[in-house]
């Protein structure tokens, strides 16, 4: 049998193996699915951001394009002389304002940089001269110009769009100022989440529109430097130490970078939720698997232990049976070999007795001695024959008959045989026989021999003065009748306990016992399908326990 530490090791090994084989695929599955989901989700977010960025860029480009076209259309449809007429520029401005409210003012500047005519709220700048300014030179060179946002003389964030026209040898410039607030409304929109942001940057990373968070208009916003590229790009950019997903696109009409920052918490919320879900499912799976593993291993182990125990007890009973069988064979062989010489001795003695009838021997003075001797020879041959016949009886394989036997009756009858002997030795036999004891399918004559052997042994063991208790009772599962015979004798020493059913084992004096009584009893009970065992401690008497299977019909 495996020792309990062996079982513990086996249990740990089983649990770990099963957990390993179950949990590793579970973890791989969970991780893979989560990664796939994460990739798909981020892909979707990026796509959405790209789309949004592209749309915004187009809107702004379109806006700038329209403004430029409008101014060009005005400049190229009329000569300078036309605008110089009283109220004409005013009328044109009003017309432009009718459709687009973001124009602040409109002015015409001649080639030496001074305002020729102006319409708008800031009359003070009429006297301004732009001859040395960068934008004035550029517009004359390139034909049009769009400025960055600046505060300028008006001290209000705005930008200018200017176009130049050449008339003969003369150049004049039409210049409009536009409120840069327009970009705020163009760039921002409710398509961005609660924490999303969008803004425009010029090449020096100066904000051209008002972001919702962080620095203000015209302040620096450092996203890093991006060389000009076409189309839309998405980058992960750290702002205030936190990584943000940012969509970037350069405008076509102006060196401005459009940046749209998505709301990180909003965009990653499904991911976080999924991560939680994955963890919960993994934890739940782990608990279920661990519970199942422990349960299964417990079941398997207890089954294993039970079968080990059964095997051990089966082995023990098989050992006893095979011991009995081989002893029986040997006993039979010995008995048979002795029977032949015994038969001859017996016949020789018989022949001598026959001859004693002859006249001349009768006259012999030793006649009486001869007769005595022959009688003794015959007596002891008979004794030897009894032994060999009992030995052979123990060994023979005759099926016992099976009849309905009332064990109580058999016991009562057996006691009457021994009552005199017991009384003579001052031994009292007490009985506790269960009433309505069920019948057993057995052989009453053989059972009686067993009880006789055991009670006789008990009387011999006690010697004088003592008690014998005999009890019967029915038990269930298995359905058996149990007979216990307990004596108040000296008991059986431990080292002899497992030998008492062996043939020729006896504690009695030579000539008083054959040492076969218990052997035969054991073999009878075994053939009847029952069990017999003995419990004893030195000085505490001995108890024989016989279990007989119940009659099942």
């Amino acid at each position, binding site marked *: 049998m495996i020792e309990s530490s062996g079982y513990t090791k086996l249990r740990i090994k089983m649990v770990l193996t099963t957990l390993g084989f179950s949990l590793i695929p579970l973890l791989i599955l969970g991780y893979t699915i989560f990664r796939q989901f994460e990739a798909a989700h981020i892909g979707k977010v990026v796509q959405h951001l790209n789309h949004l960025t592209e749309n915004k860029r187009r809107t702004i480009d379109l806006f700038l394009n329209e403004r430029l076209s409008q101014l060009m259309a005005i400049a190229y449809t009329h000569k300078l002389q036309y605008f110089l007429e009283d109220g004409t520029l005013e009328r044109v401005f009003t017309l432009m304002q009718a459709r687009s409210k973001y124009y602040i003012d409109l002015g015409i500047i001649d080639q030496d940089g001074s305002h020729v005519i102006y319409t708008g709220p800031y009359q003070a700048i009429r006297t301004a001269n732009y001859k040395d300014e960068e934008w004035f030179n550029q517009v004359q060179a390139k034909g049009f110009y769009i400025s960055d946002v600046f505060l300028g003389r008006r001290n209000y964030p705005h930008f200018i769009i200017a176009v130049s026209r050449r008339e003969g040898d003369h150049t004049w410039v039409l210049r409009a100022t536009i409120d840069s607030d327009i970009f705020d409304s163009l760039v921002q929109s409710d398509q961005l989440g609660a924490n999303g942001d969008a803004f425009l940057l010029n090449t020096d990373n100066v904000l051209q529109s008002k972001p919702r968070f962080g620095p203000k208009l015209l302040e620096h916003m450092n996203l890093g430097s991006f060389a000009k590229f076409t189309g839309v790009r998405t980058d992960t950019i750290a702002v205030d130490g936190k990584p943000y997903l940012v969509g970037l696109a350069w405008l076509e009409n102006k060196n401005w970078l459009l940046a749209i920052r998505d709301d990180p918490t909003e965009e990653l919320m499904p991911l976080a939720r999924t991560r939680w879900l994955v963890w919960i499912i993994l934890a739940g799976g782990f608990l279920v698997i661990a519970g199942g593993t422990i349960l299964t291993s417990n079941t398997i182990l207890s089954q294993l232990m039970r079968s080990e125990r059964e095997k051990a007890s089966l082995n023990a009973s098989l050992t006893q049976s095979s011991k009995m069988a081989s002893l029986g064979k040997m006993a039979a062989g010995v008995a*048979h070999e002795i029977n*032949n010489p015994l*038969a*001859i001795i017996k*016949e020789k003695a*018989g022949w001598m007795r026959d001859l004693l009838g002859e006249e001349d021997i009768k006259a012999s003075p030793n006649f009486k001695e001869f007769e005595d001797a022959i009688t003794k020879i015959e007596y002891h041959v008979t004794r030897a024959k009894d032994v060999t*016949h009992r030995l052979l009886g123990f060994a023979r394989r005759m099926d016992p008959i099976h009849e309905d036997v009332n064990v109580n009756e058999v016991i009562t009858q057996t006691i009457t045989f021994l009552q005199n002997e017991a009384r003579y030795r001052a031994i009292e036999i007490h009985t506790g026989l269960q009433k309505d004891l069920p019948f057993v399918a057995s052989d009453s004559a053989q059972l009686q021999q067993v009880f006789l052997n055991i009670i006789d042994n008990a009387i011999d063991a006690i010697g004088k003065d003592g008690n014998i208790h005999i009890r019967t009772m029915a038990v269930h599962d298995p359905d058996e009748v149990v007979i216990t015979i307990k004596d108040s004798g000296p008991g059986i020493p431990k080292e002899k306990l497992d030998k008492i059913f062996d043939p020729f084992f006896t504690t009695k004096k030579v000539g008083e016992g054959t040492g076969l009584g218990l052997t035969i009893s054991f073999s009878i009970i075994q053939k009847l399908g029952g069990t017999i065992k003995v419990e004893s401690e030195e000085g505490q008497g001995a108890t024989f326990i016989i279990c007989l299977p119940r009659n099942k019909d």
Partner: protein
Amino acid sequence: MEIRILLVDDEADFVETMAKRFRIRKITVAPAYSGVEALKLMDEQDFDVVILDVRMPGMDGLEVLRQIRLKRPLTEVIMLTGHASLDAGMQGMNLGAYDYVLKPADFDELLDKVRRAAERKALNVRAQAKG
């Protein structure tokens, strides 16, 4: 009534002593020390009863019994058997033996069985003569 017995056993001492005891009781006994010898004797003369040991070297008692039943179906056979070969005794009964006796046998019991076997044989002979 005169009874003729054939006594078959491989133990010479046993056969001789047994024979003497029968003879002193006026019963004719022919000794045989093996199955082959017994069958040879039976070819030469008729016996009423054969006392046959089951365990013998060479041809064993059961085989001898079979041959006897073929040769002399009217002759009665009593088997001598050790306890361990009780099955053989039973088998002998099935093969037509009159009875069996356990070794070491009680002489008076054996004598009684011999007499009764002889009677039965006489009855059978008479019945066959009539029939």
